[in-house]
């Protein structure tokens, strides 16, 4: 089987400082990869390199495109990469306000990606937006309200709806449950798990929270100082960590 995403030797430096170094892995269709590690270990840097928000200094990010098969997204043209960013890829930010238009109604937020790929029927766009609000458990009556009037959990669910409405094949998430109350986190996790299963989504989830990876991730990478120190099936890594740093992390000594 062709990997959906094949990451090879990704390295990103900030001046002399290492953001992430020589990261390689394959992600297969329908798989969820978790990335854990302490603060500053390079998780977000890696994620942003893969999603095209940062340009790595070295390495390849090969995505199996619908039309042309595997393509290195780092060397493809910017218009092509941005097109992927609003069709086959989705990016869920930790802070919903970074991923939403706060001055635009919930329906407009969800509809934006549809309009960006050329949908021009208001009634259809609105119907799809309303349907997606339902799927993320936001009442349809809120379709014309701005996200500023939503709770943190609702904003995060709206951001997810806005990202998934065009049926992406790969979702990048950076701490999607960070900053939310524990009970709200649990509900969001449940929802995410359902969506990932129902849509057969592939995802890469960066998190501090081992409970998140336990619930969502098939496989896990542990990062330290910009490098992957251990990788494997989630249960294996969590139940029988091999690397001393993973052992510390799992024994919660390092959990934030």
């Amino acid at each position, binding site marked *: 089987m062709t990997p959906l995403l094949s990451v090879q030797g990704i390295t990103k430096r900030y001046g002399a400082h290492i953001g992430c170094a020589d990261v390689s892995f394959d992600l297969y269709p329908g798989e969820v990869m978790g990335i854990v590690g302490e603060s500053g270990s390079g998780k977000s840097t890696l994620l942003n390199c893969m999603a095209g928000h940062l340009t790595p200094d070295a390495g390849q990010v090969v995505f199996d495109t619908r039309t042309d098969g595997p393509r290195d997204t780092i060397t493809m043209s910017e*218009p092509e990469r941005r097109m992927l960013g609003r069709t086959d890829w989705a990016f869920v930010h930790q802070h919903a306000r970074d991923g939403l238009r706060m001055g635009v109604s919930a329906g407009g937020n969800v509809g934006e990606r549809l309009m960006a790929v050329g949908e*021009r*029927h208001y009634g259809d766009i609105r119907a799809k937006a309303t349907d997606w609000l339902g799927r993320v458990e936001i009442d349809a009556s809120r379709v014309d309200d701005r996200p500023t009037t939503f709770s943190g959990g609702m904003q995060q669910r709206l951001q997810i709806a806005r990202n998934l409405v065009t049926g992406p094949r790969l979702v990048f998430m950076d701490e999607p449950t960070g900053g939310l109350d524990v009970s709200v986190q649990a509900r969001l996790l449940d929802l995410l798990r359902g969506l990932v299963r129902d849509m057969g989504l592939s995802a890469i989830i960066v998190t501090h929270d081992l409970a998140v990876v336990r619930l969502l991730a098939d496989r896990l990478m542990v990062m330290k100082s910009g490098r992957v120190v251990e990788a494997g099936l989630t249960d294996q890594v969590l139940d029988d960590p091999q690397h001393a740093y993973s052992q510390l992390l799992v024994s919660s000594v390092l959990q934030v």
Partner: protein
Amino acid sequence: MTDQAYNFAYLDEQTKRMIRRAILKGLAIPGYQVPFASREMPMPYGWGTGGVQVSAAVLTPEDTFKVIDQGADDTTNAVSIRTFFQRTAGVATTTSTSDATVIQTRHRIPEEALSEGQILVYQVPIPEPLRFLEPRESETRKMHSLEEYGLMHVKLYEDISRHGHIATSYAYPVKVEGRYVMDPSPIPKFDNPKLGDMAAIQLFGAGREQRIYALPPYTQVVSLDFEDHPFEASKADHPCGMCGATDSYLDELIIDDAGGRMFVCSDTDYCEARQAAGHKGKDAA
């Protein structure tokens, strides 16, 4: 007489050449916003320094110049700009649309169809149609260059969701020759259909934002809309009270203390010419 303290049309030749280059570039890439080094003009910004600079760059001694502000030739703004070029360029001025070779305007396109050889210069306050939803200049520039215009429809979507219809009635966004999305300046959307396929040259100047853009003659201009909410060039559903015209854009005037109202053509030249030709509305004396 020309005031000899100034160069012809106030701006020095080098500045005019720079502006003309921006205009030519704009004409070559219809709807594309060309940056230019805007100069200080001896008038307040709101009075249209962008339009004035473009007019100064295109005027020749043989031109006949007309200025309209909200359709009228006699507002303070229109009179001062007309007087300015009378003094600094010595050009002939007129209020007649068909007699003018260069027409500077704010907020309207004349009712009378323009012809080849005429130039219509628009005063533009905010040239960037995407500014409303995307404040970052770097991002809007990228959206234009990559033709990523979904956001423009988000604005129209918001309109419909809030008002039940597209409520944008001024500065209604258009797509030029299937490529650039353009702000037509705050003209009423009633005027949008006149933008396309026009025989005259249309030039747009934004002074504070330092942008010039243009539509060469006979350019395709399409107002954005949705399939189920098509663009409509609406106006008040009345005939003109003075000249009886049913095809012109109307201003609503309060005519007495009892709140009596009357609708009259916003284009004063058009209305006066019709009255002179014997047309009479119901409110005409």
